[in-house]
């Protein structure tokens, strides 16, 4: 079959798609990144990075993070920082470390899993919002599991 100009264009488009997809994947695996925040909000410490690099791929680490969606104002910054660090660990970990973030609510299956499987219990903390003081059950626990899955 004689190739027409539109066939050439389609081939070029497909080749471009393959180049973009493979470059994005390869560079994503390499983890080239820069934290541009003044306080290094998403920066992992050198010791953590070394620890992650040293994980034996045959015994991958799975991080189960149980973090409530809603937390009192005092814990918002801590929660945001924790989530940032977990995402960074997930990106830096490759196949040696995976992070699973679960957002349990009171009485949910995820809450049962946190309590029954990992012993992570919700903490009742003071919640001051809307001019009222009350209690709020908050999950903010991590479980590290290692070994072949």
């Amino acid at each position, binding site marked *: 079959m004689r190739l027409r*100009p539109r*066939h050439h264009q389609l081939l070029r488009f497909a080749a471009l798609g393959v180049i973009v997809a493979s470059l994005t994947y390869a560079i994503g695996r390499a983890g080239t990144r820069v934290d541009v925040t003044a306080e290094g909000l998403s920066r992992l410490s050198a010791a953590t990075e070394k620890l992650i690099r040293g994980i034996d791929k045959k015994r991958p680490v799975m991080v189960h993070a149980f973090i409530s969606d809603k937390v009192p*104002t005092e814990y*918002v910054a801590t929660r945001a920082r924790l989530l940032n660090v977990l995402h960074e660990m997930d990106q830096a970990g490759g196949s040696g470390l995976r992070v699973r973030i679960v957002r349990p609510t009171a009485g949910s299956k995820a809450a049962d899993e946190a309590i029954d499987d990992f012993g992570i219990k919700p903490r009742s903390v003071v919640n001051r919002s809307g001019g009222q003081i009350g209690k709020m059950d908050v999950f903010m626990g991590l479980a590290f599991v290692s070994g072949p899955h």
Partner: protein
Amino acid sequence: MTKAIGIDFGVVHAVFRKDFGGYLSNPTGYVFLTLFIGATAAAAFVRDEFFTRNLADLGLLNQVMPYILAFFVSALTMTAWADEARAGTDELLLTLPVRDSEVILGKYLGALAMYSIALLFSITHVIVLAYLGDPDPGLMASTYFGYWLMGALLVAIGLLASIVSTNPTSAFVLSVLAVAGLVFANSAGAGIVGGVGFGLAGALLWLVIRGDAKGAVWAGLIAGGVPLVLWALGVWSGFGDLLGSIALEDHFRSFGTGVVRLADLLYFAGGTVLALYLGVLLLGRRHW
């Protein structure tokens, strides 16, 4: 005329000036600017969580920015080709001794410039944050860079939709659906998104190879239906992961936390180039 990589930038500039001038000389352009700033401000500040979070960032806006852009960018680009068809200038434009790529690039840059202006005005949100707290300058810069990159990709997709359909309403709907596909690629409905994506790819392949629109519909149905069935039966377990890797939100998230990843930059830049190239390919279908 300035020529590089086979593109006459004099032509690109002329098309850009015409389109960009069109946006600014039309009241719709100013309505777009106002509504965009209003909608983003409402998403960022007019929510209870903004004060309970007590963080000087745009985290709440980041959660909904893809949805806001899906509508606003589609509204911006839906008339890109419809206006030409209505004024009868499309045939004139496409019969002039200019390349399709130059026309597409000029139109793209016109729409992108309009979006960039809207984004520039929305920097007032940072001023509000600076008044209320102490936002991290690096975090603000990376967040806005992410908004711009995401908008750049969506403008290219919107332009593609307006090439496929010169009816503004159809172009708007097509563009919103395409963006929704990217937004929901990592959700529970990923199989449907993937099925539609594979279907469109199959239809495009048939259309370009055979030049037959009727057969393309069947090719699209088969190409989309097979992976959809395999996914529904649980045979193709990696289908969800494959689609998740193209999800818009996943590639934007890092920008919103002050981290610029090279892979995310490539995703947005590469996706934009791909959408524009596909636009050139489809615009050339009148010669098939």
